[in-house]
């Protein structure tokens, strides 16, 4: 199963598509998957907050342990968790370099106008680790929660905003549809791309204008199909008498269970540890 050195013009583009893991659910039967989506949402927010609570490198130890334990329990392969990092790689490197070069302080090493300081090294390390942990941690939530469950949770959490006439239901519905469509549209893009490649299309060579123009044979059919799907969906929803959130009940109302209480307890313990470390 090895020995492939060749990359078609298409393979590269496809790899790019595959890296977009947003809204991707990884079906498994685990404790984390079975948690109430509200708990997972709260847990993710808590986790992100804790990333910014500590000032020394010791703080990373409980965070990494917590994340590693959660990933292990979720049974999502670590490979997937890190894949979410790939599109962020450029941003990560950029931030690390900027931090490294612009922080003033005790000089460690210098050459021409560039100087690296002790504080810069520390800031860059902090920044980089935080970003990696942030992305991997939040992608765990999308891997273990179906888009439907996630929006149901958001709808419940933000329900109080309804008194200010904020269209909570509509926004939640729009979000769940958008999330649902991401994989569909990715698949569609993949198909259209292949079909145009079969007609000799070339997405790789030429200057930036030529390449932008080469995207047209993909973008036009993609938009046409997106609008067609949107129209079909709207009709299907109307045919089932959808008329917004008023008086709408849920087939599976969200309910906390003992499992969720246990998760809350673990989260509280985790928060305590983070606050206690120097």
């Amino acid at each position, binding site marked *: 199963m090895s020995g*492939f050195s060749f990359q078609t013009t298409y393979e590269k583009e496809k790899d790019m598509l595959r890296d977009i893991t947003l809204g991707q659910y990884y079906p498994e039967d685990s404790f984390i998957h079975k948690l109430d989506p509200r708990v997972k949402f709260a847990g993710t927010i808590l986790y992100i907050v804790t990333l910014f609570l500590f000032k020394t490198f010791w703080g990373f130890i409980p965070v990494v342990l917590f994340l590693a334990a959660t990933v292990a329990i979720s049974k999502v*392969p670590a490979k997937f968790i890190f894949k979410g990092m790939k599109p962020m790689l450029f941003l990560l490197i950029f931030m690390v370099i900027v931090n490294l070069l612009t922080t003033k302080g005790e000089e460690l090493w210098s050459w021409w106008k560039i100087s690296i300081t002790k504080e810069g090294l520390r800031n860059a390390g902090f920044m980089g680790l935080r970003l990696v942990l942030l992305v991997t941690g939040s992608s765990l939530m999308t891997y273990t929660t179906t888009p439907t469950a996630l929006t149901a949770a958001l709808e419940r959490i933000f329900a109080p905003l309804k008194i200010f006439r904020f269209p909570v239901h509509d926004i939640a519905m729009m979000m769940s549809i958008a999330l649902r469509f991401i994989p569909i549209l990715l698949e569609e893009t993949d198909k259209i791309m*292949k079909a*145009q490649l079969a*007609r*000799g*299309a070339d997405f790789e060579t030429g200057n930036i204008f030529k390449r932008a123009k080469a995207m*047209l*044979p993909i973008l036009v059919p993609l938009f046409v199909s997106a609008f067609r799907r949107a129209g079909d969906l709207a009709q299907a929803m109307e045919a089932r008498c959808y008329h917004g959130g008023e008086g709408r009940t849920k087939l599976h109302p969200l309910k906390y269970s003992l499992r969720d209480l246990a998760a809350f307890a673990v989260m509280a313990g985790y928060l305590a540890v983070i606050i206690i470390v120097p």
Partner: protein
Amino acid sequence: MGIKLEHVSHIFNPGTTFEKAALRNICLEIGEGEFIGLIGHTGSGKSTLVQHMNGLIKPMAGTVYYDGQDICADGFDLKKLRTEVGLVFQYPEYQLFETSVTKDVLFGPNNMGLPQLEAEMRTYEALKAVGIDEDLLDASPFDLSGGQKRRVAIAGVLAMKPKVLILDEPAAGLDPGGRREILDMIAGIRRERNISVVLVSHSMEDVAEYVDRIIVMNDGYIAMDGTPHEVFTHGEELEEMGLDVPDVTRLVMRLKAEGVNVRTDIFTMEQAEEELKKLTR
């Protein structure tokens, strides 16, 4: 010469819960001028298989040869391969993008870098071959009917003058009349241009009377490969694989089961008529 697959396997998303073996150890040769029907139930790997034939998917194991050359080898000209092995995708009408029918069909020939005149000649020839009227040439492809769109999309591949033409479910989603028209048209093009054609379908009835050779796929492997007569002698196995045998075949199979002495490798009305007449004699 032609296309040759040796022990080709392909697994989607290996090592994850989405893992799916789409092709298992496929060995296959497509010679010049053959007319082949590739049949299999939904998800049996037909589309995956044909995308290996023009290098859109690379095999995870095994080798694909075109004219004796390994298409995965360094320096192999994949772009040229794709013009010689023309692949029309399932529902090709969703890939139209230009402002006029002619411009859309020109996309392929232009990508080949042909001189403008040659490219235009091929475009008109192709549009004529698929039966698009001249007054539609400047229309927007989005204003055409579903059947017309599909013809334009087929012309888009035909204009590259492929030596092997592969059509993935060309008749899907059309009414019986439209199906027959499209299939008749493809048979006509094959006769005229003397090229190899691979017709992908999940319906036996559609392709049986057109092709010279039927390849039956089941769960990613080749279950049968032979002339329509050979394949239809295994009517029961076909039904077990979830494939519809033509009504006349089912009829003679039923007769045989009732103890009537008839041949069961029958798949057209004419053959059935002949066989049944023999009985009354």
